[in-house]
C-alpha cells in the first residue's frame, strides 16, 4: 500500500512516497510562483523515483504553507503535526523538533506517538530563517551551500546586533568595509539565527533529544551555533528537508489504517 506526503513551503516543495514503514522515494523542487504546480512536479518526481504510479497511491496528505493549493490531496494537515510525526518516525526518542525553513521557523514539543504537545512559530519576520542566510550570502558573494563551511572556519564570530534582516544586511556591508573576515561575519549570522530560534524554543521548553530539520539544517555553521545556544546536541537527519513530507505521508497511512 502506497501513500504520499507533500510539503509545499514558500521556497521549496517536497514529496515522499511511503510503503508501510519503507520510504520508497522522495523529491525536492523549488516552489516558484505556483504551489499547485510545485506539488504536481514534486509528486511526479517522487513517484518516478519510487517506481510507483499515481493510481497506486491510496491516500495523499498535503502540508506546508501551500497545502490549501494542493487540491488533489485527500487531506490537509499543518506542518506542526507533520514535523512532529516525521521526526518521531526517524527517532522515536525525540522530544523536540526545530525546523528552520526558507521563510519561517518552528519548534514543536513532541509527545508519545509523535503527537505535538506544544509549538511556537515565527513566520512574520525573516530574521531567524533561511531567508536571512540568503540575503547575507548575496552580500558576501557566497553560495548558500558554502555558508556552513565558511562559518566553521571563523576565528571570532562577528557581533550582528540588528534584529531585522534588512538592517542586518546594511550592518554586514559596514563590517565588510571595516575589513572583518567573511568567515567571521558568516559565523555571526549563524549565531544570530541560532539565538533567535533558541529564544523561541525556550518558550515551548526544550527537552532533549532535539532534532533539527528543514533546509537550514544542512548548514553546519547554524547547527553548531544552535547547539551552543540550546546547550544540547542536535540530531540532524540525513535528509533534513523531507521530514515534513514524511510526517504527512505517515499521517496519510494512519488515516487508512484507522
Amino acid at each position, binding site marked *: 500500500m502506497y501513500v504520499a506526503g507533500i510539503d509545499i513551503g514558500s521556497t521549496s516543495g517536497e514529496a515522499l512516497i511511503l510503503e508501510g514503514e519503507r520510504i520508497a522515494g522522495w523529491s525536492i523542487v523549488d516552489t516558484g510562483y505556483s504551489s499547485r504546480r510545485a506539488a504536481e512536479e514534486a509528486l511526479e518526481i517522487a513517484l518516478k523515483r519510487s517506481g510507483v504510479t499515481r493510481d497506486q497511491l491510496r491516500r495523499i496528505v498535503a502540508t506546508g504553507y501551500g497545502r490549501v493549493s494542493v487540491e488533489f490531496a485527500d487531506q490537509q494537515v499543518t*506542518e506542526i503535526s507533520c514535523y512532529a510525526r516525521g521526526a518521531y518516525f526517524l527517532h522515536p526518542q525525540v522530544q523536540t523538533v526545530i525546523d528552520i525553513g526558507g521563510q519561517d521557523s518552528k519548534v514543536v514539543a513532541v509527545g508519545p506517538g509523535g503527537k*505535538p504537545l506544544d509549538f511556537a*512559530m515565527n513566520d*512574520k519576520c525573516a530574521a531567524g530563517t533561511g531567508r536571512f542566510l540568503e540575503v547575507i550570502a548575496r552580500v558576501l558573494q557566497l553560495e548558500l551551500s558554502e555558508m556552513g563551511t565558511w562559518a566553521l572556519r571563523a576565528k571570532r564570530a562577528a557581533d550582528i546586533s540588528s534584529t531585522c534582516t534588512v538592517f542586518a544586511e546594511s550592518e554586514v556591508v559596514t563590517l565588510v568595509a571595516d575589513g572583518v573576515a567573511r568567515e567571521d561575519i558568516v559565523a555571526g549570522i549563524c549565531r544570530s539565527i541560532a539565538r533567535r530560534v533558541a529564544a523561541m524554543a525556550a*518558550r515551548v521548553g526544550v527537552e532533549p533529544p532535539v532534532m533539527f530539520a528543514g533546509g537550514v539544517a544542512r548548514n553546519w555553521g547554524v547547527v553548531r551555533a544552535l547547539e551552543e545556544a540550546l546547550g544540547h546536541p542536535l540530531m540532524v537527519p540525513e535528509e533534513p528537508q523531507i521530514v515534513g513530507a514524511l510526517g504527512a505521508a505517515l499521517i496519510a497511512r494512519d488515516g487508512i489504517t484507522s
Partner: protein
Amino acid sequence: MLRSPLGLRLVRALLAGRPQKPHHYVSADFFLEMARGAYASHARPVVWSNIFVPSELFWGLGIVPFFPETWAGLAASMGLSALGVSQSAALGYPVDLCTVHRSAAGLWASHLFPRMDAGVATSHICDIAGQMISNFAFTEGKPFFLLDVPQSNDGAAVDYVAAQLERLIEHWREALGISFDTDRLREAIRLSNQARALALEVASLREAQPAPLRGSGMRDQLAMLTAMFGHPSGIRYYQALRDYTARRVADGQPEQAHQRVRLYWMHLMPYFESALLSVLEDELGGAIAWEEISTLWWDELDEREPLRSLARKIVSLFFNGPIQRRTEMALRLIRRYHCQGAIHFSHWGCRQSAGALYVLRARLRREGVPLLVLDGDCIDPSNLQLGPLRTRIEAFMEMLA
C-alpha cells in the same frame, strides 16, 4: 451628534437592518443615549475615562462618561481604524504603541470625539490608557485626575483608593460644579448589584454543553461590563441576555451548531470584520465556551459604603497585581466551563497582557491545559495576518482533537 461623522456612522451601524438579538437592541439604545449625552447635550458634564474607573461613579454623580478605548473599538468595527491610526502617526505617536490608544488619539485629533469637560483614569492594568487621557486633557486645557491604584488588593489598598475617590468627587465638585447626592450614588450601586446578579445567571447558563452562545458574538462584553453597571440599561441588557441564553439552552439550540472542542478565550478579539473567529468556530468547530472579557470580577457592592465598595471593585480586578491572579482565574474558568484548551489573543503593543505569557503558559501546561498564543491586532486590520494565524489555529485544533 449627527453632525459628527462618527456619530452618524454609529447611528447607521446600530440601526442597520441586520438580524439583532434582543440584548443588542438594549445595548444599541444605551450607547446611543451615551453618545447623545456626550455629543449633543450640555445638560451633564462629559468626563473622559479609561474603562476601569467604575461606571457606577459616573451614573451616580450625573456625569456622562466617555471611554476613548471603547470608542476606538467601536470605530474599528465601523472601518475607521485606518483614519485613527494614521492620524496618530501624524501627531508623533510611535507606531509600536497599542493601536487602541493610538487610534483613540487619531480620532480625537480628527475631532470625531465629543467635548471633554474633564479627564480621569486609574493607573492600573494599562500604563498608557491614563497617559493618553492626561495628554488629551492637557492639550484641551481640562482638569485631569489620576486614581493611583496599587498592586495589592488588601484593606490598606482599598482604603488608599477610597480616600482618592473622595478627593475625586471633591475635585469634580470644584471643576465641574456637580453636586454629590449620596442617594443617587446608592441608587447606582443598587442598579449595579441587580445587573450583577443577572450577569452571574448568564455565566451559569453558559456552563451548558454544547456552549449556548457563540464566543465571537461576545466581543463587546468588556464594553458592557465597564459602562453599563449603575445604569438602568445594565439590568435590561443582562435580563435580555439571560432570557436569550436560557431559551437557547432549554431549546437545545446553540448559536454554533458544529462544536468539537471547548475553549477559553483570553484577552480581546478583533473589533473589525475578520474571518479569524469564523475559521476557529465554523470551519474547525472550536467553541469559545467562555471568554476572559466577560468575567465579572467584583463582589456585590455595599450601598452603605459606596466609595469603599467601588475602591474594592477597582483593586480586585484580576488583571491587577501579579500574573498569578489572572492565571488562577483562568484555571478556575477553564475547569468551570470544561475547556480543553485556551487561546490568548496577543494584541500588538499590549505589554500588560502579553508580558508574562511565559508564566501563564507554564502554569496552564502544568495543569494539562494547552495554550495557543495568537499575535494580532484588535484595532488595525493591516496588523492581523490571517494566513499564519489560520495555520496556528489549525495546528492547535489538531493537537486537541
